[in-house]
């Protein structure tokens, strides 16, 4: 990587003690606005809970979905969150394996984001079930009727893919936390000390500890890496295995993976910028890190844009009038609005990242990352809804408009995600202390450069 050109100032580098103190400061210092944010999130979650309760009581009809468009905002938001969940593993595992040092200050946040995004995404398959009280039919358990789930169904693959991803991500994240938990254990007294102590699993920071730790971390990174590709590939098969024109495409797996990384990076940027400001971590998360993330964003935007173009090329190349009509309608029909929002946010806007000035402007980056998040939500909407609304039998064509219930639950999902994130920021170091210290020690010893 071209990081050698990046100037990380040696002057004013925090000391190792600074790192301990700065990074763990938010954990001991309660902020007033923290409680307000937490309260807003709680209220929105409660509203979504009420909406879901009503949906369970009355039936799926309170959502706006209908006969041709059987999947709507719920599945759109599900795929959106699964996509968000991608950057965590990418940044933690893949960048770890390729020894990209710039990941150290953002990997904890990204991993936490992954966990919470999967926790959010995982709600939607339940929320969208017509009879959620029988959700366990999807689980392979030894039932007295000797019935297993249908392993031919992409929905079952999906469940396993996401379950695996969640498990590995959680273990990986926890493993990375252990040395930091030990730091916290040593900083606190009383019940906190006992809790952090229990979770730090008796970490002493000995050479033996470190050697086991590093080896396990490497192995887990190795295990997690293929998951970056597999999870969203499997999620994409929820659609690509279907016969629906607009879904049934071989490019879906790489297309979705790129889109997931794209949206995941965007979400990391969206979260890190305010977090860095709120917790005063400017010294640790610098424009150097944002510049690298912006480049990754640009790269994935190009892949996603290519995929959009390729979908249209394949529709034309297939010579299948039904497929062609589906794509013509996607760009010009009832849902032309969402389609062009998607193109603008995901393909046009990120092109500004070719310029270093944009990459180094946190304001611009924040706006772009938010737009990319919006664009990626619309991408899933376009893929799922426009394809279903306009498929084989013209007499069945029908459009779909989301209902208030669906939107409430969607907003509630964001609240749910940020609620967990706020709890995380208040109880655990948002930057890996151990890795930052390692990095700082390295800097202090050898000066600039890698």
């Amino acid at each position, binding site marked *: 990587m071209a990081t050698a050109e990046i100037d990380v100032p040696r002057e004013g580098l925090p000391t190792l003690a600074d790192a301990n103190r700065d990074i763990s400061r938010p954990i001991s210092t309660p902020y007033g606005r923290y409680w307000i944010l937490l309260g807003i999130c709680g209220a929105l979650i409660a509203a979504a809970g009420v909406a879901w309760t009503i949906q369970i009581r*009355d*039936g*799926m*009809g309170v959502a*706006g*979905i*209908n*006969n*041709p*468009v*059987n*999947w709507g905002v719920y599945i759109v938001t599900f795929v959106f969150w699964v996509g968000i969940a991608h950057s965590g593993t990418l940044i933690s595992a893949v960048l770890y394996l390729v020894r990209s040092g710039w990941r150290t200050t953002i990997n904890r946040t990204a991993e936490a984001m992954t966990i919470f995004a999967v926790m959010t995404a995982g709600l939607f*398959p339940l929320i*969208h*079930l*017509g*009879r*959620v009280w*029988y*959700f366990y*039919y*999807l689980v392979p358990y030894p039932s007295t009727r000797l*019935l297993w*789930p*249908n392993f*031919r*169904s*992409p*929905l*079952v693959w999906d*469940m396993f893919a996401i379950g695996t991803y969640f498990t590995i991500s959680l273990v990986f994240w926890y493993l990375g936390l252990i040395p930091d938990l030990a730091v916290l254990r040593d900083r606190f007294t009383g019940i906190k000390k006992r809790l952090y102590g229990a979770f730090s699993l008796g970490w002493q920071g000995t050479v033996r500890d470190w050697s086991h730790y590093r080896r396990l971390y490497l192995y887990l990174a190795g295990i997690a890496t293929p998951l970056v590709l597999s999870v969203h590939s499997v999620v994409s098969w*929820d659609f690509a*295995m*279907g*016969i*629906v024109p607009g879904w049934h495409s071989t490019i879906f797996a790489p297309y979705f993976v790129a889109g997931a990384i794209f949206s995941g990076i965007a979400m990391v940027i969206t979260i890190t910028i305010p977090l860095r400001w709120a917790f005063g971590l400017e010294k640790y998360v610098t424009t150097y890190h944002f510049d690298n993330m912006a480049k990754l964003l640009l790269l994935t935007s190009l892949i996603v844009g290519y995929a959009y173009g390729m979908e249209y090329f394949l529709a034309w190349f297939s*010579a299948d*009038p*039904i497929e*062609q*009509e589906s794509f*013509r*309608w996607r760009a010009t*029909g*009832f849902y032309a609005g969402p389609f062009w929002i998607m193109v603008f946010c995901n393909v046009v806007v990120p092109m500004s990242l070719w310029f270093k000035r944009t990459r180094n402007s946190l304001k611009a980056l924040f706006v772009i990352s938010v737009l990319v998040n919006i664009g990626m939500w619309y991408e899933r909407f376009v893929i799922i809804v426009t394809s*279903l609304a306009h*498929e*084989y*039998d*013209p*007499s*069945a*064509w*029908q459009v779909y408009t989301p209902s208030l219930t669906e939107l409430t639950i969607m907003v509630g999902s964001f609240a749910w995600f940020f609620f967990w994130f706020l709890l995380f920021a208040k109880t655990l170091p948002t930057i890996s202390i151990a890795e930052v210290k390692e990095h700082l020690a390295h800097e202090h010893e050898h000066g600039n450069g890698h």
Partner: protein
Amino acid sequence: MNDGGVRHDGSGAAGPEPTGDGATRREFLKVLGVAGAGAAATACGPPDAGDKLISYLIPPEDIIPGTNVTYATVLTGAGPEPLGVHATVRDGRVIKLEGNPDSPNVGRLSALAHSALQDLYDPDRVPGPRRRTEAGLVEASWDEAIAATAAAVAAGRTVLLTPPVVGSAARFYQEWAEAVGARWVAWEPLGLEAQRTAQRIAFDRDEIPTYALERADRVVCFGADFLGTWLGPVELAGRFVSGRFVDHGVQAKYTFVGPRLSLSGLKADEWLPARTGSETLVALATAREVARRKADGRAARVEATLAPFTPEAVEEASGITAERIRDLAREIAGARSPLALPPGIAGQGVGATDAHLAVALLNYVSGAHGDTVRFDGATIRGRHVPYAAMAGLVRRMGAGEVETLIVAGSNPAYSMPASSGFAEALAAVPNVISLNPHLDETATAAGWVLPSHHELEAWGDALVRPGYMAIAQPVMQPVFDTRQREDVLLQMAAAAGSDAFDVEDYRSYFESVWRELHGRMYGAGPSFEEWWHENLSRGGGAVGPGFPSDPAPSLTAAAANYRFAAPGGEGDDLTLVTYPTVQFYDGRGANRPWMQEFPDAVTKAVWNAWVEIHPDTAEPLGVETGDLVEVRTEAGSVTAPAYVYRGIRVDTVAVPLGQGHTAYGRTAEGRGVNALHLLDGSADERSGALAFSGAAVTLTATGRSGKLVVMQGHDYDEDREISEIIHFDDAMAAVREHHVDLTALVEAAYDSDPQSPYRWGMTIDLNACTGCGACVTACYAENNLPVVGEDLCDQGREMSWMQIMRYFEEAEEGFQTVHFPTLCQQCGDAPCEPVCPVYAAYHTAEGLNGQIYNRCVGTRYCANNCPYKVRRFNWFTYERPYPLNLQLNPDVTVRSKGVMEKCTFCVQRINRAKLDAKAEGRLVADGEIQTACMQSCPTQAIVFGNLKDPASRVSRIAKGSRGYRMLDELNTRPAVTYLKSVTHAALPAGGHGPGDAHGATESEPAEHGAAAEHE
């Protein structure tokens, strides 16, 4: 079990109804049991249908729990024709109606007839006698009610108003009126008085002839909706399709003449869009040209009368070019058995009799008279007064000359145009007594409401045609505290001091009528009891040797020298057409949820009334489908959503009848508009028939948009191998060159378990399908489909397992229509099955796509992945207000929220037949299983059976040259084979889709230039 008139089975009438030949003692007792139950029903009141368990202390003879019992009866109130039915009764309540194979409707039914069940179980029926007080309606006892109404009748100047009846009831009402000194008036809003008058003038026969469509090789229809609402659509549709046996090289070319393509018009090969009211001129000009070509004796008789009506002379007034009239005449003259059908209700203007007469003359000169139009075996219709006479009654009522008005089965306050002043006159009548089952518009104005039985709870009879009588018997205990209408009248007469009737009740009255008739017919022969019970168990039967009559009575001099009005010039007014629909008919269907949710056969609109206008009329007004427009005539105005429709003349506006009720029940009230408000009450001079069309209208866009829910997303199949239509010559060539492709059969055989002897399959002949929708309603009744209401229909949440899509196909000239029934295709390689994570959708050993409700968790992936879009999800749990729930079929699960459902090929009927077969140690025989849709279809377009049996009917039809499978390129291997529709219209060689110029109703007509041709 199959021993006699009472049949226990699960599949409805899977085979021919056992005849009563050699009636056994057991059968006799059974019938007596039925009779006894019915007598008890009339005598004691309290409703106990469905809410009591069955006593096993003395088990009722006919009730075997869990087993269907079938009773034969006849429906006279289910549309224009009497329909013989088999009522399927389970545990004491009727759950399904099937056509009676012994009656003229040969086992077929209409949508409206199926919905009679919802009329029977209508929660809005009046539950018992009611008296109107200042505080509103209060409950009263039957004794009070009879005493009070009898006193009113005894006071004199009573009018009894009923619908037209035939059989014993006609005699009864006459005798009753004489006994109490009342006047009996029979009236029918959609009457046939003009047609009758014309036959009287032309042939001195006050009868409606039989139209032998099955023999005709050239059909021209001047407006009658013979496939939907006119005369006898179930029977006529069957006859019509019998004349379209394309695989044997026969298909009558069919031309429709009129300003608007009705359900019947959409089936035509050719459309002559004559201006409203000018059908007479087109018929006369055609007759003139035919006569000129034939130049025989018949032609000579009418030559002078027809002389002024040259094709050129009528060109301007009708809007039909002389050339086209000449072509039509040439084809009629050259045909072996031509047939012209007269105008129906939609074409009934102020010159209605003339129009019928003109068509009669055309049939006369073309040779159809006596051949395809026959006066032997004619349909018997009850006499009724024309509209003009009703107007006279209104005058007398208004003048205080009517002291008491008894309304029995008629609802004139709704079905008389507002301009007639009936409602105001009704207020001037001191005693209004309603014997109607509902609180309809007329009953709402009544002082006494004495609700009568539904016809499924009552005794009655009908002479359906000379030589065939039908008997109506109660098929279950009354649902409410109601009485047989005639019994109420009998009790009234007795209480009023009349001793004219020495019978206990109406049942014995009408039995005595038939006893007398039997004596006259047979003298000594089979005993009356034997004869009677046989006919009762079969729902009717032959009576005597029939009434021999001349099939072709000679033309009267009056008709031969009739002076028709000379052709006028071109008018530029917009003219009005009002027409009855399959689902509402004269408005009686409006309170039945199945009928409100029934997609109209032409527009596919539900739960509303609409205004049909041509795209070229709509465009300058800036109106699109759903926008509110105001239609104003001199008599009044209505505001309703527009429906932009290609099949209507630019200068014509059409509004359906039957909606806009102000009373009648929760489903009907306040829904749509009543088109009768637009009629000024002008009537045909000769017959007194109400003019339903021809009024000048002004059309204004209100600028507001209304709500018209149209259950079809797009009107064109975009050449996707969905609705296929081919030219007759190509069909014939295909028949000649056709080779059976055995690979398809082998493939089909592997779509079920190789061990299973069955692979269930279906064929649907699009050439036979008329779009009448009987199958759709039959499915609702059989499979407990919920009705979801207008809003949910709008959201695309209708639950119909079977829908008839109406696809337009471009022709060289104008367009053709293919009615395309869609239902689960039961694919051999079904896309819905592998995607279900819990095996709720799975493949059965017999090749069905099973759907296990209990296992379904509601991911809805199956519905997304179904290319045919036939899966239905339960977005809510749908309620059926008591007693509508009594209709539910116990053999079919009632689904609740959150599960997916779809057509099962009536798996409950399949399983029942398999059990029967297994008990007898054999395989299910071909034809033993009829799905509900198949059983109802008036044209037998649907055939069901075992595809693994190469000799089965369905296998043989599926192998035919016209067979294709919907979206075959997806290789889903559907079990449903469609047979292409066949037309005589020239079709374009290349792609045929809509162009913008045609004004597709879809707001976004899709590009279709790129569409490849798959033929």
